[in-house]
Structures are given as structure tokens and as C-alpha cells.
């Protein structure tokens, strides 16, 4: 069957393409966009890293929206939606300094302003919190802004996290057949070697702001026990990743203290000594020109285990950037999981991953915690957090509350 037929039969309605990783969804979406563009329609593809789709032609969020909305029929409605998404408080800032979720909202609004015939959102909504996801979907379904646009969406992760408001769902198998065996992500071979040092991680009175006079974190205090899994939760832009980077030592701690096993630390001076982190964007955490060299930083016996966990044993000579996004994320997850450190932070590890992989990640993290590691997870997936049985910490108004 041709996907164009589906788009024609549901004009102006968002359609979800269901399928696992490596089922051919991305290929299908890209081909659909390319074909429609060749036919003279306006078709736009957005992947999961949205900042590459920001135009960079305008210095502020307001102007970015303005240049896209120039001459659009629904210019005023677009700015009203921007206000409802909370983007007006960022109007004077550069689009590139927004948080991931804010950039997703801005990019989708901006591309809708161009009134495209087809808009493909390939895992784009994964970085949004539940509230913003619902708002976007409602806008795609019911707003006049999107009435001319046929939207194709892909979703990943657990069924419980999926949008109920998207009734039109088709399987990617209806349109493509793929015979390739997808790389496995399997926790059964995972061999975790715990650090010699384990202990409590404590934070007292952490204050932090990127700009003078504007604090993101205010008096953050917590005491975390080893062998447990914690989750940092909160809306987009509240400072979860910022707090994580301070604990790692990637951002300086201006005010407050961090202790490990009762001893005050200075993570900024010795980054990664106590806490290591799996970053949200795997592209910035890959530095070699082959998977083999990437894993060679690990101890010998760990690199084989890491390759097996990520499912890249047959891809050792490939350049990491030639791997699909999903495999790059699994590779960096696997590398971090094999570092011998007391504490680990995983920032949105399930983005782009299918249910089987998410389950395996749950198994990996549980194994690590059983062996004494301290784990902190940052995730918008409520189901992932539920299955991990995390102790939940909610970040709001700059400080932490236990849920």
C-alpha cells in the first residue's frame, strides 16, 4: 500500500505510524517527504534532535516565529499558541539557548506556520513532558493552523506513555517490508563490575543560574543512598539536566556543597570521578572514528560486554556517526553502564527506543543497583519510572520535593 493513499483518506488529521526500531519508519517518512517535495508539495521532516531544524536566520524566539509566520493566514493564532506553551517568556532569547522541550514546541509551531502539506514528526515529541505533548496533539487535531497539514508521527517506548488522542494508527508493515535482523539490546549478557567505593551522595543548598540574577536551582538539598534508583522529574526547562551536570562536574558549583560518603567533593575539579552521566544527545558523547576505538577507553573485558549489550558486535569497524540515532544512544548507554563509578545518571535513555529495549534498560539499571551502584534517571516516561520503581524526586521552582 502507498502511504499517499492514507494521507489522502485522512486529510488534516495526524496519523501515527507504529513499528519497532529498525522496522523502516524513518526510511518511509523520509521517502514520503522527498517524494512529495519532488511533486511540488511542501513537505517537512523533523527528527528527534530539533535544534538542527531551527533556521538560525533570526536572533530571537519571537523573530524565528515571525519569519515563519510572515504572511500566514493564522499568524495571530500561532502567537496565541506560543503564549499558551509558555514561549512568550523566552521571546527575546536566542532559540539556541532554550531547553530541548522548548525548542521542540518552537520548531513545530514554526514549521506549521509555513502551512506545509505534509509534516513528518519522527520521534520529535519524545522530549516533551505529558502536558505539552497533549497540547501539541490537540493543536494538530483541532486547530485551524494545522487544518491544511497532514501530519505523520512516530512514537516509541511504552504503550502507557502513548497519546490517546491519536486514533488514526497504521502499522509501518503495511507500507514496507524489511527482512533485516535488527541489532539486539540484551541485558542477559551484561556484566556489571561495581566500583570499590560506594556511598551516599548528598547535596546541600545548591544554587545555580546561567545568567546573573536568574536562578534555575534554589536551595536544592537531597541525600541519596547507594543501591537505589532515583528519578529526577519535572516539566521542560526546570533544571533537571542542569542539576545532573553539576553533580557530574560539567558545570561549576558556585553555591552549596556536594558530598560523597560524608566527604565534601569538588566535582568541577575532578569531573566524572564520583558521578558519570549518559547525556541526552549521544552525538556529543562519541569521539572516535570507529566503534572499536570508542569502546577501547573501557577496560578490556568491559569493552566486549559493552559491545554485546549495545548490539554492535558486528559493527565494530563502523564509524559511530554512521550508526542510526537509536544505536548511537544504545552505544553511549552501554559505555556509561560499564564505567566503574559509584554513581550514574541517565538522561532520557529511552528516547527513540522501542518497548523491548526499554525493558532491557530497566533490567540493566536494576542489575547495577543490586550490585551497589547509585542510579539517577531523568525521564518523561512515566511507565519507565514505574517499572524501575524509583524513588521519585520532583524539581519545581528550583528546588526538590519528594513524591
Amino acid at each position, binding site marked *: 500500500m502507498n502511504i499517499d493513499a492514507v494521507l489522502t483518506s485522512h486529510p488534516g488529521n495526524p496519523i501515527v505510524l507504529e513499528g519497532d526500531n529498525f522496522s523502516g519508519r524513518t*526510511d518511509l517518512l523520509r521517502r514520503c517527504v522527498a517524494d512529495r517535495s519532488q511533486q511540488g508539495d511542501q513537505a517537512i521532516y523533523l527528527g528527534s534532535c530539533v535544534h538542527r531544524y531551527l533556521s538560525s536566520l533570526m536572533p530571537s524566539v519571537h523573530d524565528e516565529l515571525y519569519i515563519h509566520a510572515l504572511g500566514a493566514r493564522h499568524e495571530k493564532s500561532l502567537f496565541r499558541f506560543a503564549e499558551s506553551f509558555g514561549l512568550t517568556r523566552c521571546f527575546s532569547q536566542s532559540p539556541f539557548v532554550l531547553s530541548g522541550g522548548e525548542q521542540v514546541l518552537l520548531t513545530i509551531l514554526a514549521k506549521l506556520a509555513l502551512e506545509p502539506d505534509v509534516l513528518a514528526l519522527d520521534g520529535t515529541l519524545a522530549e516533551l513532558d505529558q502536558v505539552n505533548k497533549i497540547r501539541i496533539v490537540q493543536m494538530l487535531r483541532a486547530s485551524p493552523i494545522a487544518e491544511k497539514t497532514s501530519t505523520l508521527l512516530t512514537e516509541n517506548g511504552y504503550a502507557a506513555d502513548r497519546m490517546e488522542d491519536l486514533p488514526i494508527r497504521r502499522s509501518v508493515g503495511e507500507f514496507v517490508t524489511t527482512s533485516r535482523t535488527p541489532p539486539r539490546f540484551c541485558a542477559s549478557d551484561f556484566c556489571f563490575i561495581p566500583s570499590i567505593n560506594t556511598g551516599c551522595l548528598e547535596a546541600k543548598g545548591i544554587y545555580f543560574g546561567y545568567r546573573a540574577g536568574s536562578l534555575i536551582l534554589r536551595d536544592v538539598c537531597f541525600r541519596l543512598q547507594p543501591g537505589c534508583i532515583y528519578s529526577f522529574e519535572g516539566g521542560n526547562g526546570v533544571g533537571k539536566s542542569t542539576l545532573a551536570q553539576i553533580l557530574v562536574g560539567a558545570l561549576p558549583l558556585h553555591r552549596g556543597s556536594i558530598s560523597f560518603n560524608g566527604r565534601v567533593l569538588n566535582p568541577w575539579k575532578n569531573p566524572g570521578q564520583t558521578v558519570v552521566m549518559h547525556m541526552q544527545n549521544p552525538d556529543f558523547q562519541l569521539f*572516535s*572514528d570507529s566503534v572499536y576505538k570508542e569502546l577501547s577507553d573501557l577496560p578490556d573485558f568491559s569493552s566486549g560486554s559493552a559491545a554485546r549489550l549495545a548490539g554492535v558486535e558486528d559493527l565494530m569497524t563502523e564509524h559511530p556517526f554512521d550508526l542510526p540515532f537509536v544505536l548511537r544512544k544504545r552505544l553511549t548507554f552501554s559505555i556509561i553502564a560499564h564505567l566503574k563509578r559509584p554513581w550514574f545518571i541517565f538522561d532520557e535513555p529511552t528516547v527513540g527506543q522501542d518497548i523491548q529495549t526499554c525493558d532491557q534498560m530497566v533490567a540493566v539499571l536494576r542489575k547495577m543497583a543490586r550490585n551497589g551502584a547509585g542510579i539517577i534517571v531523568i525521564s518523561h516516561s512515566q511507565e519507565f519510572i514505574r517499572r524501575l520503581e524509583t524513588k521519585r524526586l520532583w524539581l519545581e521552582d528550583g528546588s526538590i520535593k519528594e513524591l
Partner: protein
Amino acid sequence: MQKENQDYAVTSDNEQQRKKVLLMATVPIGLLLNHAMGILTLYLKLPLYLDNIGMFLVTILVGVPAGVITGILSSLLGGLLINPVIPYYTASPIALALVAGWMAKKGYFRSIPRAIVTGILLGLVGATCNAPLVILFSGFTGTCTDATTALLLANGQSLFTSAFFANFVNDPFDKIIQCLLVVWMIRGFPKKLQIRFANSGYLMRNLIK
């Protein structure tokens, strides 16, 4: 992995269109890299400039005209953002882009020994273009060459001699480092990027098969 590397983003078969997209994409990156390296060496007080790396990469990836455009814009915008002295050196990037393109065409970014030869040649070209201009600023431009100029002036050499020798001492060393970094970077390119630039510039001639 082959299927993943297909060029979906460039939707038009039109060759002109494709080249325009490559140009639009790489020139800003070349500019950013030039200026970021220039600021970094100034900040770290390194005895280097490293402020042509972006231009060399754009020349190799897209060709000499793109490299020349990057060089000119880099000089003009550098004057706006870093040091008002920089635009007066615009002749140097033009000459460097031409020579770098010629060397890249002959595959002189393919190996370390070849890159060293290229660096020496680029250094001599850069010094020849820069030296007369240094006299315009009485020998001092706030860059690493000032130290050598000062030493020669202190020893009683004329301004003209000091400026010339200072540039001929510093520039080749700086350009060799830049060429080696360029070789390191292009060798680290993934296949999906190689495919994008396969039919423009000189990238494929400078990759070891």
C-alpha cells in the same frame, strides 16, 4: 547501514541546487570554526593563530570559491567581532584558499608528511601576504607574532625587517598545526558525510582508500 546513509535531505536532482545547499551549509560552519579557534588561541595565549582551519575545511569539502568566500567573510566579520585589525589582512585568506585548494586537488591532505609540506607552503604564502600589513600597525597587532617582532626590534632591526622575519618564523609553524588538524578531522568523517561531499570539492582525493 548503507540505506541509512542515503541522501534524503537533498530532495532536488538539480546539481546547482545541491551545490548551493552545500555552500549555504558549510560557509557559516567554516566562519564559526575560524573565529572560535582564533578566540581560543587568543584566550589561551597560545603562540598560534589556528584561525584558518574552517576555511581550509570548506575549501576541501566544497571547493576553492567557497573557501575564498569563507576567507573574505571571516576577515570582515572578524573585524566586527574580535579585533578591528583583522579585515586588513583579507588578502591573506584569499591567497591561502587558492593555494590550499591547489594542494588539496593534488591530494596533499592525504597524509601527515604531505600535510607538513602543505603547511610550510601555506605558511610562506601567509607570511608574504601579512608582512607588509604589519608595518601598517607599526609591528604590533595583538597577536603571537608580536613577541618575535619585539625581539627583533629590540635588537636594532628595522621595522620592515622585524615584521617580515617575525611572520616568516611564526606562520609556517602555525599552518603546519592547522593542516595536521585538518587531516585528523577529515580522516574522522563518517561515510554519510563523505557521501554528501563526494561530488564537490576535493575530499575524496584526500581520504586514504
